[in-house]
């Protein structure tokens, strides 16, 4: 019986045999090394640490240079050394990035390339296989398709009869082809035709490799797609469509992914309902595959339906949500599969209320809530994204359906997650849930959610800051005074004014929107902006002067608008802000906003002016004069026929109000 024990002394002993001068000993040692590492990630790592890879790379390089004499025994040994060392290097690189890096660092890549020109078939095969393993990793060197020599080499690879050599060509394309320019170069060189012929006549692995390469060349390139489809071919992409029904699951998946790439890039192809339904069914059925194919299928499904209501509807009719739920129920899922299914559900429920109702009726929510505490961060993030989609259901939000412990408590705990992407995703879900007008949000407050949000508003990560502010903005939306006051005292005026002037525009926007919501609805709340010497009001004025995008202007103006709806003192303070901040052309930002292309910005500005000049306030005439002197009244007169109805009506309101005081 063969001894199966791995003697602890063996690894280093094995490596010393590699260095032997006797070629037969060397070959045996190489073969033994290869057999120990194939399939065994742990061994690959330990041999890597012992420096096996540079040793093998050295042997390979030396053996290639050996001139093979006519003595067949010697050349036999040399060939064996080449084959075994290439196989060992290939195995180190197979699915193991540290191995790929070590093989590249050891300088083995050029040696392996040279093997492709060797007269011995087995040597070529071993070299091609090893290179293929390297090219399956992102770490492989980028291949420059735009160089003529390289393109010729690639064509020679694809034209080879040998399966592994052709497969190498396809792997190189899948790995390195990135830009539209490269895609076009490959098309012009006739590569696509070659790949297409492999689809029809090639072996299983050749077909799979071609599907991946074709998808890479088609991605985001409608021009190449339509050139490939061409007017003269009867049923474009028929070979790919046929492969979507192939016996082998991996082929079906790759074919679907290729079709999805084509669909998404080009509005002309694969748009009929038949093909859409077919792809949906195939992907849902692939979920049943127990292996990697089943893990990847939900991701392909997401790419297919994301942002597309028509496809989401078709998928709903195909019972997608039931099927995804069924797989979730199975439990102990591979993390990748778990993540994929959650994201697929998130995409399904992102736009359609019918999908969300289905989701909630199946009691999927509990499974998703469980996923919030999964050990894998990708799964946690996906669970939050899923909740964010589902909590867009206004019907259920208003019924207070989501403001419960099962969901809120784990979500708030995720605010402290080590991963910032988990934090941001949790904030996204919470932002929806706190728009709850019925239950007084007690669960959220009780578990310290509000304080946590304020803490996150101070995060180093800008995306965390802006999402935390978004959640707070929603939290205080039409909330009662007491709640708003507690938020404000927790935040403080100085923090809020700093956030308004944050370096990140998205943070500025959310901070201004938060102020808008805080001061809305009650005159007493307006005092917030005057706290600590009017820090916030100043900050708003400053930020509006240098607003980098319309959204910032909109939120800031609405904040000012709300302040201006208060008493005389408030209105005076606002008008001061409008005019103390002047640019070098001595123009107030008000004019700039009124002239903006964005109708939302125009309307927000006009509303503010309406509030400043309303007839019931005795300071109105003075403010009107200021506005007139700044050229605003004439600007408004130019806007009486503004294309936006809201703007038109409010402009006329202002002009009506100014006439009531006697126009100048």
């Amino acid at each position, binding site marked *: 019986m063969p001894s*199966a024990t791995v003697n602890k002394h063996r690894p280093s002993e094995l490596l010393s045999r590699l260095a032997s001068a006797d070629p037969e000993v060397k070959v045996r040692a190489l073969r033994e090394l290869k057999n120990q590492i194939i399939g065994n*990630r742990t061994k690959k790592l330990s041999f890597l640490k012992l420096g096996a890879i540079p040793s093998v790379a050295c042997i390979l390089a030396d053996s290639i240079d050996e001139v093979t004499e006519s003595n067949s025994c010697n050349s036999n040994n040399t060939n064996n050394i080449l084959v075994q060392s290439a196989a060992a290097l290939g195995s180190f690189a197979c699915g193991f990035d540290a191995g790929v890096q070590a093989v590249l660092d050891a300088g083995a890549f050029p040696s392996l390339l040279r093997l492709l020109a060797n007269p011995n078939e087995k040597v070529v095969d071993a070299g091609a296989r090893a290179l293929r393993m390297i090219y399956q990793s992102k770490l492989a060197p980028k291949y420059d398709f735009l160089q003529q020599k390289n393109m010729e080499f690639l064509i020679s690879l694809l034209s080879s009869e040998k399966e592994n050599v052709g497969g190498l060509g396809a792997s190189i394309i899948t790995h390195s082809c990135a830009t539209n320019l490269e895609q076009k170069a490959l098309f012009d060189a006739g590569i696509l035709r070659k790949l297409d012929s492999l689809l029809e006549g090639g072996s299983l692995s050749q077909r799979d490799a071609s599907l991946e390469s074709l998808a890479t060349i088609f991605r985001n390139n409608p021009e190449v797609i339509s050139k490939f489809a061409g007017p003269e071919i009867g049923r474009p992409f028929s070979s790919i469509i046929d492969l979507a029904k192939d016996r082998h699951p991996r082929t079906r998946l790759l074919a679907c992914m290729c079709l999805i790439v084509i669909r998404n890039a080009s509005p002309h192809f694969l748009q009929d309902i038949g093909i859409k339904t077919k792809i949906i069914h195939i992907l849902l059925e692939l979920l049943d595959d127990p292996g990697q194919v089943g893990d990847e299928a939900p991701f392909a499904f997401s790419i297919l339906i994301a942002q597309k209501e028509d496809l989401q509807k078709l998928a709903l009719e195909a019972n997608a949500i039931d099927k995804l739920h069924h797989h979730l129920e199975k439990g102990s899922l591979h993390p990748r599969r778990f993540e994929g299914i959650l994201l697929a559900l998130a995409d399904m429920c992102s736009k359609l209320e019918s999908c969300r109702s289905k989701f909630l009726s199946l009691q999927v929510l509990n499974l998703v809530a469980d996923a919030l505490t999964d050990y894998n961060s990708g799964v946690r993030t996906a669970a939050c994204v899923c909740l964010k989609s589902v909590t867009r259901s206004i019907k259920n939000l208003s019924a207070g359906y989501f403001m419960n412990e099962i969901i809120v408590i784990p979500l708030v705990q995720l605010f402290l997650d080590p991963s910032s992407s988990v934090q941001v995703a949790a904030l996204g879900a919470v932002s929806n849930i706190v728009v709850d007008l019925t239950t007084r949000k007690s669960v959220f407050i009780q578990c310290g959610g509000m304080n946590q949000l304020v803490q996150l508003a101070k995060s180093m990560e800008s995306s965390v800051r802006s999402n935390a502010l978004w959640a707070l903005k929603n939290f205080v939306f039409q909330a009662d005074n007491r709640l708003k006051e507690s938020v404000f005292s927790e935040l403080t005026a100085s923090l809020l004014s700093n956030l308004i002037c944050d370096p990140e525009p998205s943070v500025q926007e959310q901070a201004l929107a938060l102020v808008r919501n805080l001061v809305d609805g009650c005159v007493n709340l307006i005092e917030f902006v005057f706290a600590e010497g009017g820090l916030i009001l100043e900050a708003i004025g400053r930020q509006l002067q240098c607003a980098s995008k319309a959204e910032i202007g909109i939120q800031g103006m609405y904040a000012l608008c709300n302040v201006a709806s208060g008493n005389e003192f408030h209105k005076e303070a606002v008008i001061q802000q409008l005019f103390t901040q002047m640019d070098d052309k001595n123009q107030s930002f008000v004019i700039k906003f009124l002239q903006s292309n964005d109708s939302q910005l125009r309307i927000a500005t006009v509303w503010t002016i309406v509030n400043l000049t309303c007839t019931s306030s005795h300071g109105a005439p003075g403010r009107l004069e200021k506005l007139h002197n700044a050229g605003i009244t004439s600007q408004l007169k130019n806007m009486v026929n503004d294309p936006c109805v809201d703007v038109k009506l409010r402009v006329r309101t202002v002009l009506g109000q100014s006439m009531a005081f006697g126009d100048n």
Partner: protein
Amino acid sequence: MSLFWIVIRQVAEIEEQMGTSKKVITPEEWEKRLNDVKIRKEDMNKLVMNFLVTEGYVEAAEKFRMESGTEPDIDLATITDRMAVKKAVQCGNVEDAIEKVNDLNPEILDTNPQLFFHLQQQRLIELIRNGKIEEALEFAQEELAPRGEENQSFLEELERTVSLLAFEDVSNCPVGELLDISQRLKTASEVNAAILTSQSHEKDPKLPSLLKMLVWAQNQLDEKATYPRINDLSNATLEDPAV
């Protein structure tokens, strides 16, 4: 008339009968219809060759090729290699089998974690079977435990196998079936299938599918007609319908 002919004609005929409403078909009528069904000899030969090749009967395939002129769809030399692997597993020489697979195609075990685990598992079983308990323990710790760490779904299988070590009388314990010859055959079959797939060959022969088709088709037609049935696949006799 070979059994094979009979089976194939039966399938073809039944499919044709599906369209009509329920009725009784006499044996004479049925025979007459069967005679009208045309089956090509070349197709039959291909099916036989496919069976021999997939199951790995190299010499029979060679002889059949010489005598019938039918070309196999894969290189017969590769069958020899594949059969050597299968045989090694069936005899319990798992380490030898692994080396042979890796010589044939190093990617197979590198990209098939489940197969690799089952081969390692078989190695452990063989060690236990031969009473090499110390070695078995060491092997389980060194080789199988990392597999369990790399992939959680193997842990349960691993625990079952290791539990063999806990029993005095292994042949009578709850996981005793692992020591059975059928476990070796299962593993051998798994390796065979993986090699076939890597060679882009279908891993299952066509003949069983044909027989399954026959059984299914007869069950379907039973709802519509009474007719002579094949009830014993091994002798393919047409049994007269019950009157």
